[in-house]
């Protein structure tokens, strides 16, 4: 999966050509609630339309989380079992601030521009800044451990650090703050983005969030820095000899992955107005891992597809196989690991040249330019 450098700079509009499928998908997703509304007749904010918006919101957010994990594992070549710490860290930062700080602040102060009350906006902004800060710190913490440790030891330490985070949020000592085992529920969220009252808003926000994150990550992967991170994955010793400091670039990979994961966590926290210990647990990391593997490591579209598959499977397998659906899913996962190790997108991309070649041959045959 190499990034082939293109010498000629493409005109702006042509750049969208590569992304046309995604553009179409984006448009479809944008239109989805309205179309559903037309077809089913139920209101935008209730019934089946609302339900499916909810499903898609989870998908959008988890896709960003999975992509951020892929940034680490697929592009950076760093196997971390503690990525949920960033996701949960973002969620808890958001929930804690919104629960314990924001209502007080909003109760006491009003910030007006003219007659426009932007207090809630400012509060959200500050909270999100805090989320970003916390997730960057978590990324730094994890990358600091990678300086001394290698391979399986490093993977295990990330697992342990993740667990430490999990234990921390579960600790009863901070019950009044974090809600310990139950987590924080019914977190205060401004009305205009409240998922029960204004689902469409949060739907659109998550959709835009996904698209923006995808574009930014794609750009990052193709940026000078991103290229260095990828090369770092390939051959760290050689990078050192060329004149790059691998530790620095590993840190950048960690911090940026953590940054996106933290944002996704915070958004998830808005979506279900809660932050629970499960979001920090290893299960969440494993979910991201599974999504990435399913779709294909080292591609950004892969994790999105993986998230979509996971979301669909968890919806339909339940109705098909009952409560024991993960059994079927587990078998499926093992089969994919055994027979499609590069994931769906990865395998497809590897074969794509063959497919292309096949098509060209077919066309040649049809146009009778070649006698075969």
């Amino acid at each position, binding site marked *: 999966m190499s990034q082939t450098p293109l010498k000629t700079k493409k005109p702006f509009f042509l750049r969208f050509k590569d992304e046309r499928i995604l553009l179409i998908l984006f448009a479809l997703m944008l239109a989805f609630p309205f179309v559903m509304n037309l077809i089913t007749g139920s209101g935008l904010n209730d019934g089946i339309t609302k339900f499916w918006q909810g499903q898609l919101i989870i998908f959008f957010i988890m896709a960003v989380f999975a992509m951020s994990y892929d940034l680490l594992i697929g592009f950076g070549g760093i196997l971390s079992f503690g990525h949920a710490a960033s996701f949960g860290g973002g969620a808890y930062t958001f929930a804690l601030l919104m629960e314990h700080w924001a209502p007080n602040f909003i109760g006491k102060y009003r910030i007006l521009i003219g007659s426009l009350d932007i207090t809630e906006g400012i509060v959200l902004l500050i909270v999100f800044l805090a989320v970003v800060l916390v997730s960057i710190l978590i990324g730094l913490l994890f990358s600091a451990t990678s300086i001394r440790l290698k391979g399986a030891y490093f993977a*295990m*330490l990330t697992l342990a650090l993740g667990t430490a985070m999990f*234990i921390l949020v579960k600790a009863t000592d901070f019950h009044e703050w974090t809600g310990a085992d139950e987590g924080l529920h019914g977190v205060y969220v401004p009305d205009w983005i409240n998922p029960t009252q204004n689902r469409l808003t949060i739907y659109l926000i998550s959709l835009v969030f996904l698209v923006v994150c995808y574009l930014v990550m794609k750009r990052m992967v193709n940026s000078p820095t991103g290229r260095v991170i990828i090369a770092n994955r390939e051959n760290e010793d050689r990078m050192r000899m060329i004149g790059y400091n691998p530790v620095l670039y590993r840190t950048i990979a960690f911090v940026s992955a953590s940054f996106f994961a933290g944002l996704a966590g915070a958004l998830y926290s808005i979506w279900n107005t809660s932050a629970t210990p499960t979001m920090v647990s290893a299960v969440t990391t494993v979910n991201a891992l599974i999504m990435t593997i399913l779709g294909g490591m080292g591609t950004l579209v892969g994790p999105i597809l993986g998230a979509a598959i996971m979301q669909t499977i968890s919806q339909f397998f339940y109705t098909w196989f009952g409560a024991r659906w993960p059994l079927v899913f*587990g078998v499926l996962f093992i089969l994919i*690991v055994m027979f499609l190790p590069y994931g769906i997108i990865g395998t497809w991309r590897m074969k794509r040249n063959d497919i292309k070649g096949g098509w060209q041959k077919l066309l040649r045959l049809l146009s009778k330019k070649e006698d075969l």
Partner: protein
Amino acid sequence: MKPENKKRLMIFIWSLVGVGVVAGLYLYAGKEPFIRTTLSGLTLGSLFFMVAAGLTLIFGLMDVLNFAHGAMFMLGAYMGWQLYTNPTFIFGMLPALLAFSTGIMMTSVIKPYLIRWEISSKWQNFLPKAAYFLALVIGVVAFWGFDILQLANTAMVAATTTTAGNPLAEISAQEPFVQFWYRPLLLLLSGLLVAFASSKPGVKTEFAPLDEMKSKLVLPIVLFGLTILSIIIRESAPVAILLMNGNWRFVISIIVAIAFGFLFGAIVEITLIRPLYVRSFFIVLMTLGLSFVIQELVQLLWDPLAYQMVRPPLFAQPGKAANLMEWLRNGSSTIDVFGVTFPTYRLFVILLGVVMFVFITLLMTKTRLGMIIRAGVQDPQMVEALGINVKRVFTFVFALGVAMAALGGIGAGPFLPIQPAMGEQYQMQGFITVVIGGMGSYVGAFVGAFLLGMGRAFGDYFALKLSLSPAIAEASTVIIMIIVLLIRPQGIFGKKE
């Protein structure tokens, strides 16, 4: 000689620190709490070791992080518990399993003849695939209409309703022989087909000498005999076992758990792990998926409930024994250790861990197999070049590791709730143990396990005393790990790369 001296100095300093910490704890906590906490630390350490031993062995030789180890620990507990409470399920499934293995074990017998078969490469490709497919179909047909869930239910019912009075109260009927007879036959056939496929008929580059046929026939014949036996005793054996003295029943449970773990490990290694050695990262993912599957399968068979296994009579009598002799005579549930009342079963768990350590040490240092394993850790290629089938050694080590996890499971059975997630926590602790001790070192795993057990126990003690949450105790193991890794990134007994 300078590094030697430095090493000795370090060991001396660390022993001093260790003694200091122990003395400090003793003075701080007082005699009785200290002994009590130490004993629970030992119990935990023993459990951690039983999980970590297999993990470290597997990692050392094969570089495989087995994320399904906790699930295998749990399976061991379930199997032992099954046999102990109501073995109907185990004996009901046994003929099928044995018949299938008999078929597979015929591989080495038929292989020398099959590879000499003159067939075109097209058939060489096609025949194994067809055989595998046919084996699958026959396997499905063999189980068609076989109510496994009902069979599994028997133990569940027994666990929830039977009282000590009548162990046979819930023994339930199995499928009558007239309905059952053809199932083992079909499975034998299915196994034979797998053997046919895996011996690669007609492939000339395969190698199998024609001599030594006698020794190759032993295993299939024994297995076949066992199959017949298992069909005959299918209905009577559960009754016999349930009427047995509880202590002996427990011993048999342990043996069954070990045997099951070994067999299961071997099957997993051969079918799932072996094809992935070239892409080792995917083994981690595969074992993750496997742990998923195992847990769900167990929940399917025995519902997502927690069961309490009855303690064997040797540990069940209420009352406190003053010394070991009295305990063995009366079967008391608790015993007096330096003035502290301590459950006897926990003492047994500690003993189990130590016995296991002794066993591994003997295996590794005194036997040829141990030699092969130690050599294989360094250079499997060279071991192969000496004429040793390294693949088979890998299978054996994996199976042994899983068997040890299963032994840990059944050992923990009588004092932990038996539930699908029971392995998860121990797997995590097992990983930490292995990392602390140094991956691949069983001595490290032993030391690390007891260090962690102590850390955990004293963490609990301090959490209680200082009225902190139990989370502090949970975190203590992680903290110990971080400290150890900061000082020695390769673990206590690990070797620098």
